[in-house]
């Protein structure tokens, strides 16, 4: 635990990181409406404290598996914002070279082992990564984040069961923003206090306030320490999603009062006000942070816009890691075979020599 000065510095850094995620996501939303970004685009708006608190507790050598709401996680793992934005733009300098998009970012150097687009798909895989660490006797930990809806799928049960049976170094984190797309936790889980599911696997678990990055950090640190000692952990982080499920979702399932309450409780503003009230930040410092972040985000967008589109000639480069005979490289309109010469002997006799 850092001293007071150290803790203040940590809180300032949390705030700065939260601003980066906020402004980056706002820029992504804008670029999406300008058709610079395609596909689905799920934002971390409202979840900044959760993302920052969790990521700050990991060592650089630890691994992260996450879902499709992942831009903030990629940034907090230390991946350059311009490479994250370039991926959103589908360009060659993107973190997945333009093959993954918003939902499928990957960077081995920063040990982001994937955003995964299928709900819960990352859980068994993350469990296997923890198995590999255990197999080799390493001291790294895997963190696997998911949304609240994920607690309902079979892979959740199978993965937590296997992790607990085999004492794997993994922390499962449920980011509970109360909503699947529009379905509430109460409508999708018979036990809506999701961290309690850990008991079924004799797995330590806890719930933490996702509006407080320091609390999230501390809870994550405890969970990670447990996992590093071979005791997997289930952590539930209570957050709110500020906007719709994705950029295109107008969130009509929310009442006017609900929207008003969300705005009043905006995690970034509330945390900034708290730090200001405690003398850790002031208006000038906040303005300076905003200016720095604005520059970084603008540079990221410029970089992404300037990065080349992938060359169509690379279309078949990533089907297989080990080259293989008879791998198809046919474009949609091409025939399977070049037209064959008409047979010289269209009516061969049985037993005739070649």
């Amino acid at each position, binding site marked *: 635990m850092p001293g007071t000065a150290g803790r203040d510095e940590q809180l300032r850094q949390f705030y700065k990181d939260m601003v980066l995620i906020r402004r980056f996501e706002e820029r992504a939303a804008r670029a999406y409406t300008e058709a610079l970004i395609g596909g689905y685009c799920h934002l971390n708006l409202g979840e900044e404290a959760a993302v920052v608190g969790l990521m700050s507790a990991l060592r650089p050598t630890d691994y992260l598996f996450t879902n499709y709401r992942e831009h903030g996680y990629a940034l907090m793992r230390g991946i350059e914002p311009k490479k994250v934005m370039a991926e959103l733009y589908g360009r060659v300098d993107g973190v997945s070279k333009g093959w993954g998009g918003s939902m499928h970012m990957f960077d*081995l150097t920063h040990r982001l082992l994937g955003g995964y687009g299928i709900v819960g798909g990352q859980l068994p895989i993350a469990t296997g990564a923890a198995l590999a660490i255990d197999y080799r006797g390493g001291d790294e930990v895997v963190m696997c984040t998911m949304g609240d809806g994920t607690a309902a799928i079979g892979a959740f049960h199978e993965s937590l069961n296997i992790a607990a049976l085999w004492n794997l170094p993994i922390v499962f984190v449920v980011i509970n923003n109360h909503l699947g797309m529009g379905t509430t936790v109460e409508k999708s889980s018979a036990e809506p206090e999701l961290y309690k599911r850990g008991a079924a696997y004799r797995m330590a678990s806890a719930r933490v306030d996702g509006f407080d990055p320091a609390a999230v950090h501390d809870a994550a640190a405890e969970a990670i320490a447990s996992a590093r000692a071979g005791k997997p952990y289930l952590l539930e982080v209570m957050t709110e999603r500020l906007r719709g499920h994705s950029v295109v979702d107008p969130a009509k399932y929310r009442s006017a009062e609900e929207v008003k309450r969300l705005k009043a409780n905006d995690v970034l503003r509330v945390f900034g006000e708290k730090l200001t009230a405690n003398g850790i930040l002031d208006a000038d410092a906040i303005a300076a942070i905003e200016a720095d972040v604005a520059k970084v985000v603008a540079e990221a967008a410029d970089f992404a816009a300037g990065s080349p589109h992938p060359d169509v000639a690379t279309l078949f480069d990533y089907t297989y*890691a080990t080259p293989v005979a008879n791998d198809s490289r046919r474009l949609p309109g091409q025939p399977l075979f070049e037209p064959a010469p008409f047979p010289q002997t269209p009516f061969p006799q*049985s037993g005739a020599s070649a």
Partner: protein
Amino acid sequence: MTIMTYRQALHDTLRAEMLRDDSVFLMGEEIGVFEGSYKITAGLLAEFGEKRVRDTPIAEEGFAGAAIGAAMLGLRPVVEMMTINFSMLALDQIVNHAAKIYGMFGGQARVPMVIRTPGGGGQQLGATHSQNIELYYAFVPGMKVVAPSNPADAKALLLAAIRDDDPVLFLENLALYNTRGEVPEDDTPAEIGKAAVTRAGRDLTLIGYSRMAHLASEVAAQLAESEGLDIEVVDLRSLRPLDRHTIIESVRKTHAAVVLEDDWLTYGIGAEVAASISDGAFDYLDAPVRRVAMAEVPMPYAKPLETAALPSKDDVIAAIGQTLAAVGYRTIPAGA
């Protein structure tokens, strides 16, 4: 060369690869203490211990996915799915993840894993335990699917699958486990993506894989003996990639083809083979391409019904006879 069963070839190859490379480990249901439903892993738990021979809970999605994650970090898991029927519980992990990870992350992560699993019917196991759904995996770019029909290929293709950096579905067959054949001593892997002409001939091409390639060889030998027919046999060995060139080369020579498959005919592997022949050897064909495939029913339990549903040697011989008759200018030699 040693004569051994298909089962023994698989067992010995797994063991040899585990001795050679300590990143190779096994996971699956009942593969350790119980030594495997079909005893492929007999003795391996005792020799290698629980770390490398892992009994899993009944959680196909969970352990298939765990193999993916372990493979991404550089291990070489060999997963046993007790039968291919149960692999559908892991379809999301295999199709949406194992097959996609190399591509969707821009070539940054490899998934060197093998899923060994037997298909096949004929054991009165009923509708849910007698399927041949390898097509589900062979359909998907990013997957490699191999299907050995004999002990030598069981060894050579398993070596190739384990040493490959991509996810490989390794199709075994219940009816083949006790078949015997020569297996070379050396450990040269087969080339994935290559079919084999296992018998040269000029009258007609029989094309199959797994049990049906085995059956094709039997039928070709029998008809050579009894009818003097000179039948070529193409054993596909690899369902993805599919070696269309070997198929086409053979059909351009023989001018007639019968495709054998244990799966259902409609949309089956044979349909792809027949369409490939149409694309690559249309002008060479002297008769329509015939397919011999399972009847399109959920597999019944009662023996006469099951027998009727499965392609038999007689079905294959009848299809060959009809194809040669359709050729017209050829007659089946006297004594047919």
